[in-house]
């Protein structure tokens, strides 16, 4: 028994400085992604939640080119792409604008990479994350972004919930559909900025949507789904960190696998609770 525990929790897992940074930033990003992902799933806006982190990649590439701060570059590009999506998208749009904004940002990112002298491991880290290579300064930035987003979600919670589940009725009560769409996209931008350095532009999607989608199967009320989403996100990241430390394989891989597993469990749960759910 001790032997197995020793294998699962080898020395340094909790004490090595780079692992401490990984635990703190990973947990923060898990909470942040789950909070924002909850609304993304409620609103059926998972494509946007996918596009903004990927588009922000161009900001990191740009920062590398001019020697600027990565978080700042990510923040600027995720905000620009979120606002672009918010203001260009018409009501009948089915994601074309989101796709165009994403394509434009990725194109810029490719240009920045070509102009600069970023070497492959840097690019690789931005795309797939570098949870065990996070600096103290990055940790502080990520904690700040997490606090900001959590505070914003706490303030916006009720009207954003209302306008997400019953937009016409909410709008009649003065909750502007458009204004809250902009606010929601800014939340996505905030969480993308914090998540991309940790889990990468390609995989931050799985942390935002996986736990929230799974939680919407398990949770019955909005509040329970929100807390479950946070809990599933945290457990996924923690599990992924332990497995990555033990095996030496990339954390992003385990984050994707574990969140997908939770989602699969949610689907199964929904099927057993209501066998006709998928037949319709």
């Amino acid at each position: 028994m001790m032997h197995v525990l020793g294998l699962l929790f080898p020395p340094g897992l909790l004490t090595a400085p780079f692992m401490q940074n990984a635990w703190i930033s990973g947990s923060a990003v898990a909470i942040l992604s789950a909070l924002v992902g909850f609304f993304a799933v409620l609103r059926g806006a998972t494509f946007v939640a996918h596009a903004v982190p990927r588009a922000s990649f161009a900001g990191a590439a740009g920062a590398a080119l001019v020697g600027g701060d990565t978080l700042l570059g990510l923040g600027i590009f995720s905000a620009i792409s979120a606002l672009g999506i918010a203001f260009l998208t018409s009501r009948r749009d089915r994601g074309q604008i989101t796709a165009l904004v994403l394509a434009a940002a990725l194109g810029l990112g490719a240009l920045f990479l070509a102009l600069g002298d970023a070497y492959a491991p840097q690019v690789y880290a931005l795309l797939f994350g570098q949870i065990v290579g996070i600096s103290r300064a990055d940790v502080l930035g990520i904690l700040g972004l997490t606090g900001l987003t959590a505070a914003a979600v706490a303030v916006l919670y009720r009207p954003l919930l209302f306008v997400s589940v019953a937009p016409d009725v909410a709008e009649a009560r003065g909750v502007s559909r458009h204004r809250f769409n902009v606010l929601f996209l800014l939340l996505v931008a905030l969480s993308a900025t914090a998540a991309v350095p940790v889990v990468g532009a390609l995989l931050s999607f799985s942390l935002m949507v996986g736990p929230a989608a799974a939680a919407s199967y398990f949770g019955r009320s909005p509040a329970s789904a929100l807390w479950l989403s946070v809990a599933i996100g945290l457990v996924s990241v923690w599990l992924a960190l332990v497995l990555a430390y033990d095996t030496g394989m990339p954390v992003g891989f385990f984050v994707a696998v574990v969140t997908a597993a939770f989602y699969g469990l949610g689907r199964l749960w929904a099927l057993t609770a209501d066998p006709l759910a998928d037949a319709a």
Partner: protein
Amino acid sequence: MKGLELPRADQTILDLEGVRVELGGKVVLRDIDVALRRGELVGVIGPNGAGKSTLLKVILGFIRPSAGAVRFAQGQRAGRGAIGYVPQSFSPDPDLPLRARDLVALGIDGDRWGFSLGGARRRAAVDEALAWVDALSYAEQPVGRLSGGELQRLLVAQALIAEPDTLLLDEPLANLDLRSQDEIVGLVGRVAHERGVTVMLVTHDMNPILGVMDRLLYLAGGRAALGTPDEVVRAEVLGALYGHHVDVLRVHGRILVVGAAEVESLTCEA
């Protein structure tokens, strides 16, 4: 609700003056002049595409008229939850983590910042609203798994719980069985006549609301006629709306409006 203020039948609460609406280059409403009084229940009727839903959206401020004005009696609009709205369609995702009671609770304070702290009083208020529309039996069900009629009753409860001054109901009786229709109509009638709430109720069939309807707003050809059913449902009035000759036939207590293009069946105890 508005217990102390007794409704004054002559008090205009909402005034539409020369309202014209164009959507996608097409004139949907033209020259609509309608004044609604406090505490009256107005039935809105007309063929598909006549602009009934559009008229409600203009009053709600969702659609800006290209000419004319929508005026509320002083201070009407400003209040929180001044207008209760039941949209014509609402089809939530089957997996939405939202129970029937959560939807109704959003009607209380969904427009306020922050989390709500729950509490026994809030729960009792939601239970009471659910009881108004006979929805207590499915209070804990996810809204995405409810039938159209069950959802519609919830939306009515959600609109009423905010204690609005004006209630705009877009086909709240569609999807309802006869018993539920009677219950909702009775409830809405009491809200109008006892609490002084002004109600506009869109329906395809006048019959269920004849007992509570104060006036009828007939929309056709982009124009409106407002009055008692007997004043409005006449060949010369409806002919002017449709812009061509129509006949109003009274057969076995039913009223049939027969025109060149469409036949509108209005059930009515003539």
